[in-house]
């Protein structure tokens, strides 16, 4: 048994007291005593009874005792005695054996002070799990604590590994974890993290519950965030950060500016968004304070947090915690949307002129202009550069512009002086850790609003699915908007309890109309039975159907590579053999509806300029059809008919899509195809297929010769063909297949007529007749469709109109 001795410092006495009776437990008694003092004092003043005075003094003594107690604990709560520093790799080793307790955070010391055998890992973990930190962490990870501990014990028993870790080794590892996590002291999170590092069984159990080490770290950070939110600022702290009275008296009034702009304030729930942008806020602060005429522009895509950075700076300035030249300035956002409603350009210029003059006279204004590139790019109808120029050079006004990458680059290219007027600060999309922390922070705010808790796996799922499926907006915006939708959806569905990952999956499934999570039972059936489902609509083409089904199953079970389209096939074969019908059948079987098919006739994209119609064009300011449709329906089947007719530049675009599963539109935004099935069809080599079939050449040989022919005639390059998951050769239909298709088509017609209230009947002789009349070597199944339309459907329509059939009657078909 190994019991550690803490140094004789009051810090550790405070930790032991806190362990025995947490401070929060005395909050209510202390308030009750305070109320009793006031009451007894009142009664004593009226009655003057000495016993009441005695009681009053007792209450006062109790209150002061509670006061001293809370002051003692608060002195050390949230801190340690010495701050960790240095490289985290060597932090533990550099620590002297008896100095480690000084690096403990108060919360860690509180937990450790109640442990008898510090090498007993089970006791250690149990103590951590029983405290607020452990409850929060495991609760949010969705792991039952007792169950976890039992499993940990039994796993150790099974493997025969001793469930003990040398405590000093553990603390050294915890010190490394603390520095890695950016903590000044060793927190309970760091100690648990160290246990996870040193005890592989602990880690294995977490991984089995889909909690990776980084998830564990993110969830632990969540506790830090929650603690931070729980802190109440004291009167003194509020007094120090208040702008107070009179700081603006030496600056001018700006009534017109005040009407045409909004003050920038920080809402509750935005604190961590600001923390995540600490570096950028400092950069902005530095840029604006460089010289008296300094302005700054924040460059980044909409949604990366440019306004959050401005809010962060506004808060610092408002609290007087920025640099002296910026402190207590007013940060106001121009309401350009209102200003632009002026009827004439002259009116807009006059209004803006008045606003800027007002700001200049005031002398303490930082103006924020959103989408500034719209007002400083020559050629645009909203160009106000001439008007803005003198104010941008003024020392009495500071301007922060917010711009997109491409927009600002264009402005600078066309008007180089802009580059000299602004200090540029590039804002990139935050990384995974920052996004998860922002989502955790926002979640705490939304939990109060919607009165529901969310589990960590749900937050993780939001991050994963939003990064995979939402490609037209950056983080953190897309994550936050999904998080809000998740809370709203949980409330509207009337579900109680914590929001788990499946709620997020269901939301995405509704949003995209496709299965997203683990393969469920109904979908398993569809996948297993995919060949039969496709054969309900497609006759013959066994090889094609099998290849497609196999590829889809591979993708859905996660066996195939993830950064490619869900499936990609090149269908080669003559016209009318079922290529398009297969695509429709697949869209119906896999995505649930034929309408999930996006069809492009590639013969319409024969010129190089046609690329702009697909992915958008900056010149014509048009959005691409392909980009728009795939973004709106990422879970869909993209059919590229007659792909051989498309211009080679367009084929190059698809080369990238087939390879990487994504493309970039004319505006630099990503289009994601990883959930899209791409089918390209071509008639190339149709004659060769027919000839080889007549020569009774086997299917595999036909395919080989066909590909050779396609390469030789340079219809497609080998790299284009090789990008597809499968090249499927469709063989021409024989009379037997045409007869089967006729039956399918008549079945579909029967269904339609039944919907109108008529029955339909036919015999074998009609099918034979249709097989004869509908067979065409050149047009394949298309000829049959024409015959059925002209000879059967048209006749039925005429008869119905002539009153030959009444509703409920049976229409009998016979060869004409």
């Amino acid at each position, binding site marked *: 048994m190994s019991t550690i001795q803490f140094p004789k410092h*009051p810090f550790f*006495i405070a930790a032991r007291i806190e362990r025995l009776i947490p401070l929060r437990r005395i909050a209510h008694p202390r308030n009750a005593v305070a109320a009793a003092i006031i009451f007894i004092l009142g009664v004593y003043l009226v009655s003057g009874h000495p*016993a009441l005075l005695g009681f009053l003094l*007792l209450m006062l003594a109790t209150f002061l005792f509670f006061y001293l107690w809370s*002051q003692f604990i608060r*002195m050390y709560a949230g801190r340690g005695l010495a701050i960790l520093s240095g490289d985290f790799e060597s932090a533990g080793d550099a620590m002297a054996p008896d100095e480690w307790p000084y690096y403990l955070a108060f919360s860690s010391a509180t937990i450790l002070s109640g442990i008898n055998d510090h090498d007993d890992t089970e006791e250690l973990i149990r103590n951590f799990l029983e405290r607020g930190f452990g409850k929060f962490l495991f609760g949010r990870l969705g792991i039952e604590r007792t169950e976890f501990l039992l499993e940990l014990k039994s796993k150790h028993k099974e493997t025969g590994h001793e469930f003990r870790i040398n405590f000093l080794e553990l603390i050294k590892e915890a010190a490394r974890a603390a520095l890695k996590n950016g903590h000044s002291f060793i927190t309970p999170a760091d100690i648990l993290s160290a246990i996870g590092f040193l005890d592989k069984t602990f880690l294995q159990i977490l991984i089995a519950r889909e909690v990776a080490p980084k998830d564990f770290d993110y969830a632990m950070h969540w506790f830090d965030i929650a603690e931070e939110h729980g802190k109440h600022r004291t009167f003194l702290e509020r007094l120090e950060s208040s702008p*107070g009275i009179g700081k603006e*008296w*030496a600056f001018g009034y700006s009534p017109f500016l005040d009407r045409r702009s909004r003050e920038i304030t920080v809402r509750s729930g935005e604190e961590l968004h600001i923390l995540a942008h600490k570096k950028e806020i400092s950069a902005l602060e530095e840029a604006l304070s460089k010289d008296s005429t300094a302005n700054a522009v924040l460059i980044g895509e909409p949604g990366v947090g440019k306004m959050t950075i401005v809010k962060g700076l506004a808060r610092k300035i408002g609290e007087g915690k920025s640099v002296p030249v910026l402190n207590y300035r007013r940060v106001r956002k121009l309401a350009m949307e209102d200003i632009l409603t002026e009827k004439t350009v002259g009116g807009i210029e006059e209004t803006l002129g008045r606003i800027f003059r007002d700001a200049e006279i*005031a002398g303490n204004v930082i103006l924020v202009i959103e989408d500034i590139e719209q007002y400083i790019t020559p050629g645009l109808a909203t160009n106000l550069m001439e008007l803005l120029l003198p104010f941008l050079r003024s020392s009495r006004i500071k301007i922060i512009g917010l711009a997109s990458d491409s927009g600002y680059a264009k402005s600078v290219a066309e008007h180089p002086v802009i580059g000299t007027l602004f200090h540029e600060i590039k804002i990139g999309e935050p990384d995974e850790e920052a996004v998860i922390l922002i989502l955790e922070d926002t979640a705490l705010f939304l939990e109060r609003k919607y009165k529901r808790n969310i589990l960590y796996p749900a937050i993780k799922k939001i991050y994963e699915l939003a990064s995979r499926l939402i490609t037209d907006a950056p983080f953190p915006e897309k994550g936050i908007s999904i998080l809000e939708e998740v809370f709203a959806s949980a409330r509207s569905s009337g579900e109680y309890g914590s929001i788990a990952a499946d709620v997020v999956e269901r939301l995405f499934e509704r949003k995209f109309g496709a299965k997203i999570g683990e393969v469920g039972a109904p979908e398993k059936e569809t996948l297993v039975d995919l060949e039969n489902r496709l054969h309900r609509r497609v006759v013959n083409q066994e090889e094609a159907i099998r290849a497609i089904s196999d590829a889809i199953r591979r993708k859905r079970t996660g066996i195939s590579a993830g950064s490619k389209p869900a499936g990609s096939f090149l269908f080669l074969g003559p016209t009318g053999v079922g290529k398009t019908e297969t695509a429709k059948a697949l869209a119906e079987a896999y995505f649930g509806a034929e309408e999930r098919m996006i069809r492009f006739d590639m013969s319409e994209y024969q010129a190089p300029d046609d690329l702009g119609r697909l992915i958008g064009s900056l010149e014509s300011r048009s959005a691409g059809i392909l980009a728009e449709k795939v973004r709106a329906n990422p879970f869909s089947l993209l059919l590229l008919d007659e792909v051989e007719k498309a211009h080679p530049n367009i084929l190059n675009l698809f080369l990238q899509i087939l390879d990487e599963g994504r493309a970039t539109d004319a505006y630099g935004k990503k289009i994601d195809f990883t959930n899209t099935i791409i089918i390209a069809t071509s008639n190339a080599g149709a004659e060769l297929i027919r000839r080889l079939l007549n020569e009774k050449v086997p299917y595999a040989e036909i395919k080989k010769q066909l590909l050779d022919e396609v390469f030789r005639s340079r219809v497609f390059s080998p790299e284009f063909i090789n990008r597809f998951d499968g090249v499927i050769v469709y063989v021409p239909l024989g009379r037997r297949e045409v007869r089967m298709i006729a039956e399918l088509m008549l079945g579909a017609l029967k269904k339609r007529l039944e919907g109108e209230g008529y029955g339909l009947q036919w015999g074998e002789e009609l099918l034979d007749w249709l097989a004869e009349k509908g067979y065409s070597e050149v047009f394949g199944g298309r000829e049959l469709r024409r015959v059925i339309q002209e000879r059967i459907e048209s006749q039925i329509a005429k008869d119905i109109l002539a009153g030959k059939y009444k509703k409920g009657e049976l229409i009998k078909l016979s060869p004409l």
Partner: protein
Amino acid sequence: MPFVFLYRYLLWHYSDGLKASFNKAVNAVIGFLNFFSVLHLFGTLFSPWHRVIESYGRGFDAARFFYAITGNAISRLLGALLRSFVIVVGIAAAALSVIAGVFFIFLWIFLPFLVPLLFITGIIFLFA
């Protein structure tokens, strides 16, 4: 054991605890001076009130000159008057917080004795 607790508590009370009480008192004074912007208002004592100033115009026009000089003087005087008032209030608040701080520090010094004293006196009065 309770004596060890008490001993270490008293050590804290008259070392770190006393230092923290002193810091609180000082911070309160600084906080009030900052809230009433005393230093800032001193620095801009005679600045025009909200920059309300009249232009003297081009050339010399006696009427305009006297109109502008009067207006600007009023603006500066009004500014100085209001600022002085706030400075006085601020200094008064800071002075009060100094007194309160000194009282608080004294109270802090005697608290470990005061608590048992109040308790014992209370018991005596209760059963007297």
